[in-house]
């Protein structure tokens, strides 16, 4: 698996898109820092961008890489290699190179700005960790979609829909449910609702850490009240890990069942 990971990673490092993604984050980091002039405020703005953008890039990139590297996959399948290592190697190759673009792209301007002397360093690290989690989750989901759909256009369609659903529609539905059932106790429901969406979960996680009650919203408040800050952090991390493991398991399962 490590060898396939290496080749996928090199392949991606040679492609233009990793650099575009890296440059984008670099620019975003620089612009935010110099416009804001305040590290903690920049972190909050970054959070809003990361939480929507990282899943989108992860999904699109994952689906694109899977379909584009079909020839490479076919070549590997003709060799005596385990299927799970072929697909896991490719998945990790994509996920790691995307995470690296994110961490380096955002990290560099912040380091130069004086991150290490600032108190925002933990908030910022948490932001990067969450971003990495989201990359792992959404790339895995994208691989699942691509493995299940031979048709490229369909695969892309489902990938975009998935992102749109989790990033936008889910929140709307969630809010509407809360309003409709406002006469009932909704603590549990809203907790579960948050856990079932990795994007919401990441947002709550970061806001818990930043301790900005004004931005927490109803779910965040319930979360904080229910779990407390530190336990809440642990629970959300555990849930994010589950969100990575489940799609990864399905990649392995699905790839072992598929005909090539």
């Amino acid at each position, binding site marked *: 698996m490590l*060898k396939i990971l290496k*080749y996928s990673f090199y392949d991606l490092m040679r492609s233009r898109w990793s650099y575009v993604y890296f440059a984008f984050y670099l620019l975003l980091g620089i612009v935010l820092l110099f416009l804001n002039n305040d590290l903690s405020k920049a972190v909050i703005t970054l959070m809003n961008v990361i939480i929507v953008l990282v899943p989108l890039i992860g999904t699109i990139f994952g689906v694109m890489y899977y379909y584009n590297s079909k*020839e490479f996959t076919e070549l590997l*399948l*003709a*060799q005596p*290699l385990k299927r799970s290592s072929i697909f896991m190697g490719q998945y990790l190759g994509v996920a790691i190179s995307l995470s690296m673009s994110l961490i380096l792209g955002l990290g560099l301007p912040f380091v130069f700005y004086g991150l290490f002397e600032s108190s925002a360093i933990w908030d910022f690290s948490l932001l990067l960790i969450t971003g990495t989690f989201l990359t792992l989750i959404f790339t895995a989901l994208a691989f699942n979609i691509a493995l299940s759909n031979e048709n490229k256009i369909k695969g892309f369609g489902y990938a975009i829909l998935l992102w749109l659903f989790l990033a936008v529609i889910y929140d709307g539905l969630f809010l509407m449910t809360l309003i409709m059932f406002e006469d009932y106790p909704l603590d549990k429901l809203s907790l579960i609702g948050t856990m079932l969406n990795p994007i919401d979960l990441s947002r709550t996680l970061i806001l818990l850490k930043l301790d900005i009650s004004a931005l927490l919203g109803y779910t965040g408040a319930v979360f904080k009240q229910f779990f407390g800050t530190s336990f809440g952090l642990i629970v959300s991390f555990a849930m994010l890990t589950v969100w990575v493991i489940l799609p990864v398991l399905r990649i392995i399962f699905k790839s072992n069942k598929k005909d090539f």
Partner: protein
Amino acid sequence: MVTIEGLHKKFGKQQVLSGLDLSISEGGIFAILGPNGSGKTTLIKTILGMVIPDKGEISVLGKNIKVNSEYRHKIDYLPQIANFPSNLKVKELIKMIKDLRKSTKEDERLIELFRLTPFLDKKLGTLSGGTKQKVNLVLTFMFDSPIVILDEPTSGLDPISLIRLKDLIQAEKAKGKTILITSHIMSFVEEVSDEIVFILEGKIYFKGSILELKTKTNQPDFEHAIASILTENHA
């Protein structure tokens, strides 16, 4: 060497293999023939574990392939369509495959044999179909495994490369290897193969030597013998 029992495979609604039984003994060249869409490639891919059968047992070298995938290291496989990553150079591709499987020195001899040296620094995307097929052949033959499976090995090759390929196949046979070939070029099959396996409608219709086929169908030459099977069965 390879034993297959009651193999069934369906793709959607299309039944490709329906209860195929086949046993291939050690050493020799076996040609798998059949009309288009008769399931030749599917059969090969099930032996390789690339297609998962609905029913049936396959064992290679005495071991059931479902239990352990180690047997794959004993098989060299030439895929039908050589789809290579187009941004890689020939040299890099060979190096990569060696890195993924195992180290070998055979590639230099094969590169020499197929006169590929001038192409080593070219990207795979810029190569012609025939040259790609030669690269494909190098990748397949460089590992020296006891079983060799060739899916349409002749496609795109020029006459001189075809002669070299035939010599190569005979040399591999002389080492005691078991070689499975599918091809639509009847003259090629007639020249190289020891035994014919004819697939029709997902089953083995005939297995035996070319001579036996000629007597069975009452035809003087091989090509007509094959054609008579196909016309008799309205395929």
